[in-house]
């Protein structure tokens, strides 16, 4: 009885998630999907999405790796607060993130006037897209990297030090390789989250083809008239990419 109920409950939720996703695939023929993705709108959005997410990922790796290491190794007061702040964007609604960015980096925001004084205006730019993505996606990498560093045996780092390796070389040749599966898994997850970013982007960066219209924005904007096929084609692409992401992350998690 319990078993039957468990199976029924599992199947219900599974079907609820899988059927709508599968439904997108049957809506159009593969040829129509290809045509939708080949449309200028989709191709421009794809280019913007690829460029911005790769920049976001690079910046997240550069800034997030030291932060994750400090969170894993550092012993300082208020670490739990820093931990919570880092995790916050994961649960905060993206629209809130966008509004927050706007009120700080917008033209009349907190940092708007000083930035403007040195000739930088961020709202409605591709840079704003990258900022929105880093804001919402970087915590996924930092979390994973922090766990990865925590799992590294400190005796091995100590051994490396006794063998004459400096802290930087120990980090590069001992810690990072040992934490590599977690770092890679986190990086892929971070990239996928950046790719799917919508709410903070439209709020902070606006929506303009070739500047700030990423794939998710293109989906929303093309849910119009006959262009719904473009929206579906992009959706199908994003599901395929997401599925690949999950499979990659699984592999690294198991490794």
């Amino acid at each position: 009885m319990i078993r039957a109920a468990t199976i029924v409950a599992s199947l219900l939720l599974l079907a609820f998630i899988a059927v709508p996703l599968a439904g997108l695939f049957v809506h159009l023929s593969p040829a129509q999907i290809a045509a939708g993705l080949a449309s200028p709108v989709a191709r421009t959005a794809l280019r913007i999405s690829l460029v911005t997410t790769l920049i976001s990922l690079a910046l997240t790796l550069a800034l997030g790796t030291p932060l994750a290491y400090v969170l894993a190794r550092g012993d300082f007061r208020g670490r739990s607060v820093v931990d919570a702040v880092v995790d916050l964007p994961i649960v905060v609604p993206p629209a809130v993130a966008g509004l927050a960015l706007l009120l700080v980096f917008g033209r009349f925001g907190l940092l708007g006037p000083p930035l403007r004084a040195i000739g930088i205006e961020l709202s409605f730019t591709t840079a704003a897209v990258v900022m929105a993505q880093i804001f919402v996606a970087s915590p996924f990498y930092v979390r994973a990297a922090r766990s990865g560093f925590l799992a590294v045996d400190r005796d091995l780092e100590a051994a490396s030090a006794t063998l004459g390796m400096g802290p930087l070389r120990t980090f590069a040749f001992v810690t990072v390789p040992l934490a590599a599966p977690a770092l890679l898994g986190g990086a892929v997850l971070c990239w996928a989250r950046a790719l799917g970013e919508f709410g903070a982007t439209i709020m902070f960066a606006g929506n303009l083809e070739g500047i700030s219209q990423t794939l998710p924005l293109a989906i929303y904007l093309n849910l119009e008239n006959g262009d719904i096929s473009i929206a579906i084609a992009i959706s199908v692409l994003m599901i395929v990419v997401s599925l690949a992401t999950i499979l990659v992350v699984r592999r690294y998690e198991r490794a």
Partner: protein
Amino acid sequence: MKRVRCLLLPIAVLLAAPVAAGAADQGKITVFAAASLREAFEAAAPAFTQKTGIAVTFNFAGSDTLAAQILQGAPADVFASANENQMKKLADAGALAGAPATFARNRLVGIVPDANPGNVSAIADFARPGVKVVLAAATVPVGSYARAAFARMNGHDGLPADFADRVEKNVVSNELDVKAVATKIALGEGDAGVVYSTDLTASVAAKVKSIAFPPGAAPEATYPIAAVKSAPNAAGAHAFVAFVLHDGQTFLKARGFISP
């Protein structure tokens, strides 16, 4: 056995919920309405509920989004659009119960932030290089009305023949609905935008300056309303349409809409 019940109860609830929702609840309706109608409709709803005993739930968004949602089977009782195109899309698809009726008109107005960072004092300035123009997307009614207005100004009053193209080159964002345009201008992110005169609510008007279109340039926005064919509450839908066409006019006028 007790544990089994604990497991089964949520499942039963899950299964029953759609059934309960499917059974027509004659005490409420869902109205899909253009974002620009928010203030007027929210003010009118209590009067409608008081008169008919029917509670109203609103879904405000860009009319294009709403039309797409209804075409995909969203459970709307009434659709109130900010232009005739989106309503026609539903009519052509056979998704309406009866012909749509025009219940209001609205005027386009240019807006700039109070600080006026783009130094915009007339609609003609929208085309000056470097002015950051924020419009609603061309598929959103106010976005298409605005572009039509710019096109009508081509070559008039000493403006260049490609005035509309020049404005389009200045567009820094195509927003999802008219309220988003008002917000971006009120925050000062954009230099100039186009909204409806009814969007100049007290809170928005405090942060923006409005700029009139030249006489005859801006088309009046036409708002049609209709009951949706697949309405879960058909009687309630018709009651709401009738209400908007008669008693509801007071609330629309109070918010600056023009009678049809």
